[in-house]
């Protein structure tokens, strides 16, 4: 595997994203995959993505892109609506997975 096509933070070793970069990366992924009816930049970190028009089909693409960009795998217990309902919730989930990698 090389890094081509992966997110800007892709590394061979687990990489700790700082919060600002991670939020930006999540927003990029949402912009490309979530098919929101609202502009992603106009959403606050706590805004409900489903109310902003993310369908369950689009949310699967968001999850795939997140796994790819952050080099994580969401376990089945995390694959539920509430984990992906806002930028803040996604950030917490990715952070939790990366924390468990680093530990």
């Amino acid at each position, binding site marked *: 595997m090389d890094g081509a096509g992966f997110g800007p933070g892709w590394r061979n070793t687990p990489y700790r994203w700082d919060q600002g970069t991670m939020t930006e990366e999540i927003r990029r992924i949402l912009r490309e995959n979530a098919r929101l*009816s609202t502009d992603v930049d106009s959403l606050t970190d706590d805004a409900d993505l489903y109310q*902003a*028009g993310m369908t*369950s089909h689009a949310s699967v693409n968001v*999850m*795939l892109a997140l796994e790819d960009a952050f080099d994580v*795998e969401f376990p*089945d217990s995390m694959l*539920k609506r*509430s984990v992906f309902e806002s930028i803040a919730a996604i950030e917490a989930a990715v952070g939790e997975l990366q924390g468990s990698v680093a530990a």
Partner: protein
Amino acid sequence: MSIAVDRDQAFLESIRRIAEEFAAPNAADVDKNARFPHEAVEAMREERALSAFVPSEFGGAGVSFETIAAACFELGRRCGASAMVFAMHQIQVASIVRHLDGSPWFEDYLRRLSDEQRLIASATSEVGTGGDMGKSVAAVTPGADGLCNFEKQCPTVSYGQHADDLLTTVRRAPDAEPGDQVLVLTRRDQMEMEPTGTWDPLGMRGTCSPGCVVRATFPTEQILFVPFSTIAPQTMVPVSHITWSHLWLGIATDAFDRARAFVRAAAKRNPGGEPPPAAHRLSHVMSELSLLRAEVDSALREFVKASEEPGRESLTTMRSALRFNNLKIAASEQAPRVCQGAMGVTGIVGFKNDTPFSVGRHLRDTMSACLMIANERIHQTNAGLLLIAKEV
């Protein structure tokens, strides 16, 4: 505990009696004339079966969900349409009971349902959504005098003309996204239901499910506060798939029983001989039936276990969605397979509609199973979920 078990057993006994005395004798007429199973539903009211799942604090019997599922099976063995009306009603009751969230209006409504044995129908499908229950066109719209209204074009509303109340999915507001849905409970005197079609289907004829346009006016308290996106995965979808599959199992079991009775009758005519060739076919049907029963039983157990967890969080996972979608697909394909196998055993005697071994109605009724939320739509959903789910 033993009081709860006694209560569940007593309820199931009363359902078996309704099935024998009211559903079975009218099943052929209900089917032939595509008419509502009045006798069985009246008997359910007499036995207070319509409030069976309502907790006792709101005037119901508070029976377990396993007992409701078992009741669907028992009714299914005698009349598929009666069982489906019972199942559909219980799905609406369960959606309210499990997601009341302390609403005084809905608590009062459950007391009234128990007192008056009100029958609830459901309007979840809609013209223009491509069969996706998770989307609505119709929306809660503010109207005069602080009341709200909606108008919904429904391609089918099962027993809509015979129900007292209707539980409908609509968008939260006129500017809400298609997936931002709520459930609204409206009484008959708050609605106009204009039929838009006829009802002469292949099977499940007694459910009387032509399309209609629903226009309703109601106060905002009649909207369940919990979003439909929570109610659907935690209750409405798994409860639908479990109650339906139990009644399909009931229909298939009766088809098998009739095939077995046919084989026994043949064997008695030829005592002391080898088992007749039909007995071999019966053995094949039995193994198909046991696969169906195993899938239905295990899904029920998993749902009950997940429902006991605080917050029912595991029911909201994709793994859970796949699990109960798979139940629907598997059971809806397996039930008609069993019925067709039974017809293979009975031959022309089962093919005819007026013999003790007739299984035509069973086959036709179970053929509706793959259409009640089209299996292809469910496969489409699963295909997406499988891209990301890990252990299924």
